[in-house]
């Protein structure tokens, strides 16, 4: 099997060592609204730490005075359309994909006691 780690050789610098804790990953998972199981947690602690270490090599790039790039194409203008109703009411069709609806409303657990 070809050793893919050789590809690292072409990078100008290795990334830093980043160590996330279990608490860090639990915090990220909460922000991301993801339930992570006990079994998954150590796997993410390890792989997310490695990914952040890997992308940390960006910190060595000299970017003083460089504008961040937000869009691949330049000089794009937002196209505008006439302010007219173009959509028909398809609520029933769209709600056909919803897990739980009643009387045209999406149902979720009680939010206010």
């Amino acid at each position, binding site marked *: 099997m070809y050793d*893919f780690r050789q590809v*690292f*050789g072409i990078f100008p610098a290795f990334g830093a060592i980043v160590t996330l804790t279990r608490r860090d990953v639990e915090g990220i998972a909460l922000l991301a609204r*993801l*339930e992570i199981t006990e079994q998954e947690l150590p796997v993410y602690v390890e792989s997310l730490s490695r*990914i952040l270490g890997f992308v940390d090599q960006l910190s060595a790039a000299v970017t003083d005075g460089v504008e961040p790039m937000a869009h691949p194409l330049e000089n794009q203008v937002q196209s505008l359309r006439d302010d007219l109703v173009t959509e028909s009411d398809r609520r029933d069709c769209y709600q056909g*994909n919803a897990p739980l609806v009643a009387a045209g409303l999406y149902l979720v657990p009680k939010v206010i006691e």
Partner: protein
Amino acid sequence: MTAAEIGRDLHTGKYTSIEVTRHFLERIDRANQSLNAFITVTPERAMADAARADARIARGEGGPLTGVPLAHKDIFCTDGVLTSCGSRMLSNFVAPYDATVVERLAAAGMVMLGKTNMDEFAMGSSNETSWYGPVRNPWDGTRVPGGSSGGSAAAVAARLAPVATGTDTGGSIRQPGALTGLTGFKPTYGRVSRYGMVAFASSLDQAGILAQSAEDAALVLGAMAGHDARDSTSVAVPVPDYAAGLGRPMKGLRIGIIREFFGEGLEEGTGRAVRTALEGFSAMGATLVELSLPNLPLSVPTYYVVAPAECSSNLSRFDGVRFGHRCSEPRDLLDLYRRSRGEGFGAEVKRRIMTGTYVLSAGYYDAYYLKAQKVRSLINADFRRAFSEVDVLMGPTTPTPAFAIGAKVDDPITMYLNDIYTIGANLAGLPAVSVPCGLVDGLPVGLQIIGPHFAEERLLAAAHAWQLETDWHRKLPPLFA
């Protein structure tokens, strides 16, 4: 038979669309169990499309693609048909409308055979992250077809479909194209509408084609490209007749060879095949210029900040409320969100959502996200400088031929490095194509050609010229010959 050949045969009456559609449905029936290339096969829809196409042709109407079957990557919404995006999250989602790509190819008279397997939400380079299981490479069933458009690639390589759609966010058309011996074409960002294409990273995603030849890619691109009022990032640049531009000569074409793509990470046989192809272009009268894009080696780390950031934002729509997977018996709203998403998304998707959440979070935004977008500017400037000197850039599409199923699935960074040569074009929004240029131990390898924005015609002409000189694109996997 290529899509173009089928189109010509249909117009001369050699056979009907119904006959050729039945032929491909039978091939799918025989081979799909072993390849796992399709998530959904739509035989009834296909036969109805074919009958309509035959009627059009009988009236003397229709174009070069009328009646030609195709497969759509399961990332494109198809009205009334399961659109799963390779995820448990959408395993119950029947799209209520057609993506613009689907709509336009149907209007051209193409016949939909079904929806192809893919890495979950297009996040992967091996098609192993699909909730529907891995796709097998028709050239060697123990190996991956590449990803994320792995099902489309396997389907066309095994001739279960003459041509298929794909999407490319970091190499997801070109990489599987290279690993299965196909022409994989990624257009300029904004060339093709993203409406109805499930979003992964919106500043990088672009729809394209997995085809048997540059001619097929030209025909299908022409039918799907163009401005769409429903996608504000689609560009109002006229769509040329790509097929008419295929005959451009290579004489005088200035080809830049990217020095950074020939470093020690490149597997020897792949490098040799690519260098031989470059000599072939030289023999056709093109000029080869070696040049350096010094910031390009930073494209993988840049991508793995920008793409997860956009993914974490895009995938926040999956909340278990309006559509998609919902956990059973949620305790409260937070529990509903967290368990529906925890159960609905696979490991790699969750990893990317969390990476994105982290790099966008307060205190880290400047260090990661803003920094990456600045490095992206540097990479973009490298390409711009290069294209002031040359017409196209060439190099390998992938560092190695197809690897074994399971070989890299536990190591995300090793997996991410598969896309080391393809990601640059996405970051800069450039069109790029992979064309077959050899076999290494019986496995296909690809030559990548990258052009400036909206230089699709130039890329297709170069790919076509290469395919007139060689027959690598005509080679079939032995098991499917």
